[in-house]
């Protein structure tokens, strides 16, 4: 008998007494479908909660996006900034030191960047989280990991209210990275400290749809 068969046999024997497990009571708040495009309160809440993690959040109308993004990057003193394939050209137009990740940069080259700009797939108001799914303008997973600075552009229409809303909106077949503030640790005296292995600085620009 293989280990697989033996394990499955043991599980069946161990659970033989369970006749019917309880129905799962889903009386918690389910996905509601509202987004920040129509609900300004969600945008406020997302901005407030992302700031709680010491991310720097800026908001602007679509017409000013390129200027605000370039201003945020300049304020960090970053020179070589990575730009993933399919990042909207109108948003990167004013970035002076843009380095396209096309063809994909080697890890050492990524390490040589000062930072990156990306879009995102979904943002969650309740938790101040952005989620990347390696879609257009987001880059592969290493792209937003190795450089020390990450600027994420969030459109108001991408902001959902809750975690259930985000789970409903995401595709599990894609590689997903949920990001809530800059990298941090609670390993020293259970107190949160920003800045370990991931980007130590996270900027978020919210662009009105």
């Amino acid at each position: 008998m293989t280990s697989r068969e033996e394990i499955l046999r043991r599980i069946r024997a161990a659970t033989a007494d369970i006749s019917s497990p309880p129905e799962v009571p889903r009386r918690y708040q389910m996905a509601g479908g509202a987004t920040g495009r129509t609900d300004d309160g969600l945008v406020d809440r997302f901005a407030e909660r992302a700031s709680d993690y010491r991310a720097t959040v800026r908001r602007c109308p679509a017409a000013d996006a390129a200027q605000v993004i370039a201003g945020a990057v300049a304020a960090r003193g970053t020179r070589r900034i990575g730009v993933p394939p399919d990042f909207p050209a109108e948003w990167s137009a004013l970035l002076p030191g843009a380095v396209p990740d096309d063809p994909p940069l080697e890890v050492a080259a990524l390490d040589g960047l000062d930072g990156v700009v990306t879009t995102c797939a979904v943002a969650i108001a309740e938790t101040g989280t952005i989620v990347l799914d390696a879609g257009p303008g987001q880059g592969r997973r290493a792209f937003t990991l190795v450089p020390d600075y990450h600027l994420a552009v969030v459109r108001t229409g991408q902001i959902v209210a809750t975690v259930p809303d985000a789970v409903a909106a995401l595709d599990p077949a894609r590689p997903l990275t949920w990001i809530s503030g800059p990298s941090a640790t609670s390993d020293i005296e259970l107190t949160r400290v920003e800045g370990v292995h991931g980007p130590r600085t996270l900027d978020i620009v919210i662009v009105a749809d």
Partner: protein
Amino acid sequence: MTFLGMPTAPRGVGQLRQREPFPDAAASALGDRQLRRNLGHATAVIRAKRAAAVAEVADWAELRAAGAAIKDDVLAHLDRYLVQLEAQVTAQGGTVHWAGDANEANQIVTGLIRATGQTEVVKVKSMATQEIGLNEALADAGITATETDLAELIVQLGHDRPSHILVPAIHRNRSQIRDIFTREMPDAPAGLSDEPADLAAAARAHLRRKFLAATVAISGANFAIAETGTLAVVESEGNGRMCLTLPRTLITVMGIEKILPAWRDLEVFLQLLPRSSTAERMNPYTSMWTGATEGQDFHLVLLATGRTATLADPAGRAALRCIRCSACLNVCPVYERTGGHAYGSVYPGPIGAVLSPQLTGVTDNPDLPFASTLCGACYEVCPVAIDIPSMLVHLRSRVVDDKRAHHHGAAEAAAMRGLAWTMSDSRRWTWALRAGHAGRLFGRRYGRIRRLPGPLAAWTGSRDLPRPPAQTFRDWWARRARDTS
């Protein structure tokens, strides 16, 4: 009670067993004032934060009920969900391995690493691999595993053992960590301060080159979705992302109970886990991947060791709902004072007291079900509503049955039989209570009896006994009845 055909976790490998009796280990931990200060500070901080993070969620009780029921469904249909997970991971280009026990899991992982020709691997913090002693098995095979989680690094550099599920170095304060780094980290900056931010920066610099050069990584998993084959790792520092993303080969070792049936179930657990563990609305990073991702070679090792024996006990199986948040450790009055090392197992605290003895069988961890005051704080904070106090009582009876079967604990059993004889007759009982007056010879100085003579000293070895009163209740009652008539 034993469960036929259900092997427990094997002896001689891994870290699940108490090394010395809990009362002895606890007594030496209690004598360490620095340890008690460190633990008292850290647990007080996290308790307050967790309470605030949970109070913010209006539907917490409903999420908790859903979380418990989802996990019960997983346990009831574990065979089906495992087969489904295997099919999904395989269809997405991953390879699934089944490990009946710790030795088999260690052999599988060693073989997979050898096949890559590498002798160095990076690791994301994982309870499963600690439980099975993977690092030690790899070292025996000439493979160096570097822990990349900050607290694990502190433990590894300090030649220490983990003492908490979430924060394995919780027993160390900042200046102790500075001293370990200065002593053990060749590239530690000169004049390193004990500011947490500086310590984190030193760890970042130390591990950076290793991450960028690594070609093989080992991780655990917080969740695995049967429906889609998706794996999830929840973390803070980005060391998880480094290990999951950069190396060409990724080996994930996961206890079979980590499954969730459907993708949407994450909407419950991604609310319960972060708020219960680090007491945040959301942890900094969560990675999810399905099968072989972005050109990687992906292996999933399903670990059954001790799980089926636990699953077979209807009154104990709910311990497998555990999502390793460690909220129960932080509220436990026993854990807060003794720390995690006293429990011997990698799973300390209340959940460890019910999980470790079930994984190993109660013969090998007979003290742990007694390492509790049954105050119930652990049950209250558990995000999947594991009734730890009731389970402790159940396991205490299993320990007694086990000792009886092995003819141990004869003195205690004889004492209990004597007590039953005495208490079954009212005259015998009244006489016995009066005889208890003799106990007033002891404890005159402190008002409590701190040490009984002879074999009775075993009872007072780990507790004080109240000094018997001058008059028994029965005598008082009889006199009162006479006086009023």
